[in-house]
């Protein structure tokens, strides 16, 4: 969907309404008690922060620094807010992270590797996320679905790496531990 986000930028006549999954039971905001109730509302393009429209005041403490590392190793540091969804944050900043099923836990295209020291700071994946992760190529211990990562203050400095999805292993010969 990041590619389509870029594509969207050049579409002159189409209005894109981002649809957030209407199923509260799978939305991480709901589970973290961060939902303001507006998550079900449509958000019009290009502001693709479908993070539940966190209505907290933007203070220094609310900023969460995130670094996306893309498939070529390029680092993109971005500033996010508490409550932001990592998938939509990626889209907002043109990071190449697809989200085919639009955060409804029906695909594994938003698969990311979480920098190890932050893994424990994320809530454990629910069964449905684990089921989808099982289908992701190059699964590792620190694999998570980007659409299920909601940023909290403890995650300040988190790094999310996009997996190399081709059959080739990493350039330096590193082979991820099979799972």
């Amino acid at each position: 969907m990041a590619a389509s986000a870029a594509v969207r930028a050049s579409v002159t006549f189409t209005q894109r309404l981002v649809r957030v999954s209407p199923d509260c039971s799978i939305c991480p905001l709901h589970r973290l008690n961060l939902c303001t109730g507006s998550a079900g509302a449509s958000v019009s393009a290009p502001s693709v922060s479908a993070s539940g429209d966190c209505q907290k005041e933007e203070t220094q403490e609310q900023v969460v620094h995130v670094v996306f590392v893309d498939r070529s190793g390029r680092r993109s540091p971005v500033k996010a807010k508490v409550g932001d969804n990592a998938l939509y944050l990626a889209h907002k900043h043109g990071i190449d992270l697809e989200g085919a099923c639009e955060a409804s836990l029906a695909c594994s295209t938003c698969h990311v590797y979480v920098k190890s020291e932050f893994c424990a700071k994320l809530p454990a994946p629910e069964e449905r996320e684990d089921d989808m992760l099982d289908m992701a190529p190059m699964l590792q211990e620190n694999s998570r679905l980007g659409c299920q990562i909601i940023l909290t203050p403890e995650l300040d400095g988190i790094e999310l790496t996009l997996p190399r999805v081709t059959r080739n292993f990493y350039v330096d010969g590193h082979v991820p531990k099979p799972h």
Partner: protein
Amino acid sequence: MIINRIVRIHILSRATGWRGLSSVSGPRVCVVGGGPAGFYTAQQLLKARQDALVDIYERLPVPFGLVRFGVAPDHPEVKNVINTFTQTAHHERCSFHGNVNVGRDVSVEELRQAYHAVVLSYGAEANRPIGIPGENLSGIFSAKDFVGWYNGIPANKELCPDLSCETAVILGQGNVALDVARILLSPLDTLKTTDITQHALKALAGSGVRRVLIIGRRGPLQIACTIKELRELVNLPNTRAEMLLSDFEGIKETLKDLPRPRKRLTDLLMKAVNGGEDKAEKSWSFRFSRSPVEVLAGADGKRAAGIRLALNKLEGSGENARAVPTDQLEDVDCGLIISSIGYKSILIDPAVPFDPRRSVVPNDMGRVQDTPGLYCSGWVKRGPTGVIATTMNDSFDTARVLLQDMETGELDLSIKKPGAQAISALLQTRGVRTVLFSDWEKINAEEERRGKPHGKPREKLLDVEEMLQIAWS
């Protein structure tokens, strides 16, 4: 004069599907097939090159391929990807041309003349035959056709499967097999509000099927389905699992050494042994290490009434274990057999290299063998396995390779290519009228309108003529 020019440009743009100004000197790429592979390949090309024009040709008047016709009706979230594809189709440098049969209405060679590059993404529309006697009796269907029947593929609308029997046998243990089992056993209330075709809903409402056996050649550690689908079966209301404990001997000890996805899947399978509601009237079960050897006819000699299975022993272990038949046989009574052993690509144009053994277009990373300027992505490239995400990654790979060839000059972009203009003119002389994306949107609106009174997201049109009539209205 100016008015004439404006009118002419309008007619030209309507005919070729142009919208807005486009670069006349950029690469023109043609994609054959309007399913996930085609759309994802197009998406990447458009994003990577601001001067690329991409045209997607699709045989049916309706786009989206197996996302529309393969994904189960009770998996609507998986179909969300249609929104991404719609965005791509709306891109000013992309145009969709439906109702064009490549191979019949226009040849691949003609496309190669008109475009700098042609990407074959036409998937796998045929069925792997089982290759046993009795395969052509009535009452036995390919999963491709059965799924096509409940998902509204026009060619399958007259399938009329007889669901009056008590036992149905499904050959194969992949996700398609599980989808079929689940649709056969789902409570009608669940299906009523999906986009399942109305005629299938009616047939299922009167179905006598109470027991579904899902049969595989190898063992529990080799099932090809994924955990999400198995979990849905395990959690299906009003059903119970009927598995044989003996099929799981020795499995428990191997669990800890298995890779995570296989471990979790096997764990769930073992939990399912004798699971579900005891009093449930419907049941499903997996039967392992069995290969079909003959479909047995009933008294009239015309209908399937049973299936003869050979028992296998497994040689080797893990994903590469092989099934070796023994001389032990087993007969199972059943009135419905659905063969879910794989889809198969076909050759659409003699000018395209084709590997008849693997039924794919031979290629190296998406570059078609011995044919510069011709590429492939999706199932026609890799074979018919994998979920949408798999095809997505594969399509991105092909796009990358194509873009690389553009950079290195392997594809000579200095040659001017006419693109859609030339093809549209050709099609016109052959009496072929295309369906534009905006025409599909009329079909889409009509389907949604028809679904409303039934409380369904849409009622799919089943007739190509009707689709065309609405598209061009």
